[in-house]
C-alpha cells in the first residue's frame, strides 16, 4: 500500500492529535499547511483504500461497565478453523479473533460486564465449537501495562535507511 509523504504526515497528525473542533479538517490543514479540501480528499482516499477504518472516539471499556475480559486460545483442527472462527465471531463480547502460528491456532478476546457473564459466554462458545477443554486456554488479564494502538507513520521512513 503506497503512502506518500503527505499521507504519512496527515495520518500521523490525525492519529496523534485530532482536533475536537466543529471544523476539524480545516484545523488539521492549518497545522499541516494543507488546504482543508486536500485533507478531506486524502482522508477519503485513505478510507476508500481501507487504510483508515474510522475516525471515531475510542472508548474505554471499563467506563462502559465492561469489567471482565480474557484472552482465549484454542487448538482447532485445520479443517474446522473457519467453522469455529465463525461461531466465535457471533458473540458481541468478542472484539478480536485471529488465526495464529503455533499449536494453539485460534486466539480471541472476550469481554463482559462481570466474571459470571464472561464464563457463561466462554462455556457456550466452547460447547458450541465442540473443542475439548484440554485444547482451550483461558488467560484472564491480571494487569494492564499498556493499551495504545498507535503507529509511527513518519519514523518508519527513517528506519529504512539504517538497515
Amino acid at each position: 500500500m503506497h503512502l506518500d509523504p503527505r499521507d504519512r504526515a496527515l495520518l500521523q497528525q490525525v492519529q496523534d492529535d485530532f482536533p475536537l473542533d466543529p471544523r476539524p479538517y480545516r484545523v488539521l490543514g492549518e497545522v499541516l499547511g494543507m488546504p482543508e479540501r486536500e485533507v478531506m480528499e486524502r482522508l477519503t482516499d485513505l478510507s476508500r483504500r481501507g487504510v483508515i477504518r474510522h475516525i471515531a472516539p475510542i472508548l474505554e471499556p471499563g467506563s462502559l461497565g465492561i469489567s471482565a475480559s480474557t484472552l482465549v486460545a484454542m487448538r482447532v483442527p485445520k479443517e474446522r478453523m473457519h467453522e469455529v472462527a465463525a461461531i466465535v465471531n457471533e458473540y458481541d463480547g468478542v472484539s478480536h479473533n485471529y488465526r495464529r502460528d503455533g499449536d494453539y491456532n485460534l486466539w480471541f478476546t472476550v469481554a463482559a460486564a462481570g466474571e459470571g457473564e464472561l464464563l457463561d459466554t466462554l462455556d457456550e462458545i466452547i460447547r458450541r465449537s465442540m473443542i475439548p477443554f484440554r485444547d482451550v486456554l483461558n488467560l484472564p488479564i491480571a494487569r494492564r501495562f499498556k493499551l495504545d494502538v498507535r503507529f509511527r507513520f513518519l519514523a518508519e521512513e527513517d528506519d529504512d535507511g539504517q538497515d
Partner: protein
Amino acid sequence: MMDRIDRELLRLTQDGIGIEERPFLHAATALGIGEEEVVARLQRLRQNGVVRRFGTRINPRKADFPANAMVVWSVPRDRIADIGAAMAESPDVTHCYERRTIPGRWEYNLYTVLHCRDREDALRRVAALSRATGAAEYRVLFSTEEFKQRPGGRIGPAAGPERGQ
C-alpha cells in the same frame, strides 16, 4: 460520568464521523444541541477517560504494518512489574498485559503485541526487547488470518426508551 446525551453522542459517533466540512453537524442535529457543545462534550469525555482517544482506527495490514506479532513471555514473578513497564515504554509495543498462567500447561505470563512491516522486522524488534529486559523465554505468534477486529468498548445498539439519566 456520562449523561444520556453523552451516551447518545458516543453511540452516534463510535462507528466513525464523516469526512466533510462539518462532521459533527449530524450528531448535533440528532441530539438537538450545537456543534460547539458536541465538541465540548467529546473533550470532556476524553479528559475523564471514557474516551481513551479520539482519532483514526487504522487497519495495520493496509498501512504498511502487515505483520501482527503477539509475543508470549515467561518472566520471573518478581520481575514482571519491571519488565512489563519497560516493554510498555517501547513505541513498538501496542498492547502489554500480564495474564494468569495455567500451571503445568501454559506458563507464559506476559503478553505483548507489535505491528511491524514484516516478520523479519518484528523478530528484530522482539529480540531487542528481550535483550533490553533480560526476558529470554518467549514465543512469537504471528497472525495469519484476521476473523474479527473491532473496538473493545462499544455503546449498545439502542439507548432504549427514555430512562431518565
